[in-house]
């Protein structure tokens, strides 16, 4: 890979975006889990739930701050590194980003301060509402970001304007209710819920293994596994929905993920594993599951899913059509109001393919002067990297099913059994803590790498989207981000570990008061006093003695 401006800009964007997304999923899920815990506290008045809210809230805070900090980079990076992109699609893409700020980010950021500082200043119910507002704000945030991202995958509700040389919005509602965006939103927030559930489960399992804070850990496992099971199922269902919408919005991405070189007769088979070879355009040692792909992709037995080779031929047709559009555009730009009507009409017919002509700009300044070989090359450029997509997708899906299994096990054990977990299960829960992050990052990789060579699918090639910068500029900022982000990551992890080791903050006075007030009820509940058996692990966590 030669490191030109385009590659360096992509590298920087990938790095900063993936780094940002280390913190986002935990924020999305943990905010809701904490809000649920606090709601239980308000309803039952038991101090243990307040303690849980505060403990998980502290970890939430350490994570949240880096999500916010690295999000700042994302908001400005489009303008810094992708200035032609910003000009070309800002009329559509900017709106959801700005509305995200207005509707969601303001909400979560304004109230997150009160979440931490408001315990002594607000009533219980008011504080709980504040916590919910933080959670709702975070999740709305994801909605608008995914509407913006969904538009890059499936650019609906917009049209090219020759006067301003950019895409302009024609229908806000089409942008808003983009089917790709809606499926992606639920898929992504569910992945966030799974991440937080696995995190809470893993940390709690570690406490159980150590025999510390078992009361808190048990309750946390019960909540995390119930929430996590629902979320893990939702991730898979909405992932399937994304696949279904890709079969008519991003055919090339779908074909690349499946390494489907030739169009198969319907219903197509699903390649479980294999070794895709882009040069030879075939998949070696492939194991197929008959019918599966056709059913997932089209939900029918009769519809065909086009293979890569067929899609390249289609791309070539669109490149040629795009050249006509480009030629019309040049005429319109020169003659402006004096443009003959025939040229305008021709442009209207072909303008949807204008982006395909821009693919030629990598090879020739004026697409109209492109040679046959260049046109063929540009059409082949529309194939993304097949093997990385193929594998990333399969690992992600495998992990997704793994989460369902883990969550189901802990859900059954904690809700229908004695809540005594075998040590191997607890160890597994600790070990898999990083897995949801891997799955989430792979998911983004599939979505964005699979969109190549476009920044906006079929509209604007990545190679044309960059800013007019020097290699030096990019090397400085890239090195800066790598060093800066690494240092922050090390600090973040060390604080996380420190606070997990330290365990929950015990509000001894409050716990004493509560036990005093409820001693009578607790005693009659099972016939024994609340402090009757200090060796009983079920009560030791809540006693002030620890």
């Amino acid at each position: 890979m030669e490191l030109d401006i385009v590659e360096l800009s992509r590298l920087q964007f990938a790095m900063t975006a993936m780094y940002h997304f280390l913190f986002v999923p935990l924020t999305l899920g943990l905010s809701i889990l904490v809000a649920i815990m606090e709601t239980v506290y308000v309803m039952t008045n038991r101090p243990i739930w307040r303690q849980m809210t505060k403990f998980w809230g502290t970890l939430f805070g350490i994570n949240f701050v880096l999500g916010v900090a690295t999000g700042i980079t994302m908001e400005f990076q489009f303008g810094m590194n992708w200035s032609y992109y910003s000009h070309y699609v800002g009329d559509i893409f900017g709106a959801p980003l700005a509305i995200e700020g207005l509707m969601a980010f303001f909400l979560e950021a304004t109230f997150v301060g009160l979440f931490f500082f408001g315990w002594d200043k607000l009533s219980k119910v008011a504080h709980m509402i504040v916590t919910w507002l933080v959670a709702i704000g975070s999740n709305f945030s994801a909605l608008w970001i995914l509407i913006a991202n969904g538009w890059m995958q499936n650019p609906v509700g917009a049209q090219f304007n020759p006067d301003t040389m950019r895409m302009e919005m024609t229908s806000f509602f089409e942008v808003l209710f983009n089917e790709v965006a809606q499926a992606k939103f639920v898929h992504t927030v569910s992945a966030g819920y799974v991440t937080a559930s696995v995190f809470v489960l893993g940390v709690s399992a570690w406490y159980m293994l150590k025999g510390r804070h078992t009361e808190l850990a048990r309750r946390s496992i019960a909540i995390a596994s119930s929430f996590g099971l629902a979320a893990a199922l939702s991730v898979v269902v909405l992932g399937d929905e994304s696949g279904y919408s890709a079969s008519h919005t991003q055919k090339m991405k779908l074909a690349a993920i499946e390494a489907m070189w030739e169009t198969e007769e319907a219903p197509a088979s699903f390649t479980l594993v294999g070794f895709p070879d882009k040069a030879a355009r075939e998949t070696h040692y492939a194991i197929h599951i008959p019918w599966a792909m056709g059913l997932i992709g089209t939900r029918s037995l009769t519809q065909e899913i086009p293979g890569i080779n067929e899609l390249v031929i289609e791309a070539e047709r669109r490149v040629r059509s795009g050249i006509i559009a480009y030629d019309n555009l040049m005429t319109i730009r020169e003659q402006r109001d004096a443009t003959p009507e025939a040229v305008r009409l021709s442009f209207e017919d072909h303008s949807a393919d204008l982006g395909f002509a821009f693919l030629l700009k990598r090879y020739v300044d004026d697409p109209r002067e492109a040679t046959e070989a260049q046109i063929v090359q540009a059409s082949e450029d529309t194939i993304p990297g097949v093997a990385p997509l193929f594998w990333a997708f399969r690992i992600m899906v495998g992990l997704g099913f793994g989460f369902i299994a883990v969550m189901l096990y802990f859900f059954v054990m904690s809700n229908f059994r004695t809540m005594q977990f075998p040590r191997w299960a607890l160890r597994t829960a600790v070990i898999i803590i990083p897995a949801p992050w891997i799955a989430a990052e792979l998911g983004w990789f599939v979505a964005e790498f699979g969109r190549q060579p476009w920044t906006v699918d079929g509209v604007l090639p990545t190679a044309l989207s960059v800013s007019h910068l020097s290699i030096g500029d990019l090397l400085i900022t890239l090195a800066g981000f790598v060093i800066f982000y690494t240092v922050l990551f090390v600090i973040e992890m060390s604080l996380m570990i420190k606070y997990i080791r330290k365990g929950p903050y015990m509000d001894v006075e409050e716990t004493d008061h509560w036990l005093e007030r409820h001693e009578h009820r607790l005693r009659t509940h099972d016939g024994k006093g609340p402090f009757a058996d200090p060796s009983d692990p079920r009560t030791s966590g809540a006693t002030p003695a620890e």
Partner: protein
Amino acid sequence: MILHEFLSFEFLRVVWWVLLGVLLIGFALTDGFDMGVGALLPFVGKTDVERRVVINTIGPVWEGNQVWFILGGGAIFAAWPPLYAVSFSGFYLAMFAVLAALILRPVGFKYRSKRDSQRWRNNWDWALFVGGAAPALLFGVAVGNVLLGVPFHLTEDLMPMYDGTFYGKFLGLLRPFAILSGVVSLSMLLMHGAAWLTLKTEGMVQIRARNIGTVAGIVAAVTYALAGVWLAFGVDGFAMVGEVVTDGPSNPLYNEVSRGGSWLAAYGERPWIAIAPLMGFAGIAMAVRGLREGYEVSTLLWSKLAITGIIASVGLTMFPFVLPSTVDPTSSLSVWDATSSHLTLFVMLVAAVIFMPLIMLYTAWVYKVLWGKVTEDEVTGSSDSVY
């Protein structure tokens, strides 16, 4: 959707120009005192407890305040795509420095008091100082560069290109007038931070803040006046040539622009805009008086008035330009040719009309809950909900 036709394109453009100003001013009024407090931190707090008091005055609110900055970025993207594209890639390394400083700041607030080590805390205190002072200075430098004009041009495809040997390079932005603007901005925000600390603290911290704030206020007034004089005699202004189409397509190349004359000619054409610099000076004078006399609420309000006046004066002086180009004046971005489409401006206005009042309401509620001074007892007490 034809609803947007009820509001003219020209009207929406002016509205979004005003809203751009509102966002920048909102950012300076709220996050401005956070930056000021950060920059003041090592000087007004001498002991660890004092510094924790200082940090806890802004601890619960900085996150919300910072959203003004994010929203400013998002709104420029949505309503002014060419401005977003040209300015952030043009000021590339300066923007990177601002981002680094702004990332450092939240992390500093959150992480500083999470370990007991004195060295850890001292390091974060200086990080907070940089995170406050650097953006405060650089935003002013950027505004200075905008007034001077920047060397970019747009190609026929409206692709932004940068000319000259220095543009985009960090040091090239440090032109004398721009540095002067940076000093205006830094001193103004130091004064603002001091006004905030006067309201939220007591004892030695408050006294130190009032002393530094007084000096900062005087420096702000003097440098602001100097910048005005410099603008009158030493900086070329820009003007539209020929008939100006105010509701045409957003293509900067369609409008012809000339360089020369003075920015201050605007005050001859629209004498009422003199109210902005007057607000600036009056606000500073009253804020300095308040800092001396120990007034609390009114000092902060006067300081806000001063900032509003100073930022508004830049926008009003340059109208209709938002980013002039020195090498190819025709490429200059203005209110009439650098906005989003008619529909997008309308959609965004609807969103702003719905959400801005809500934001104001709940932000006010949060400040009300947090009303009162942050004391040393509170910080050292048993509560775990302070930094």
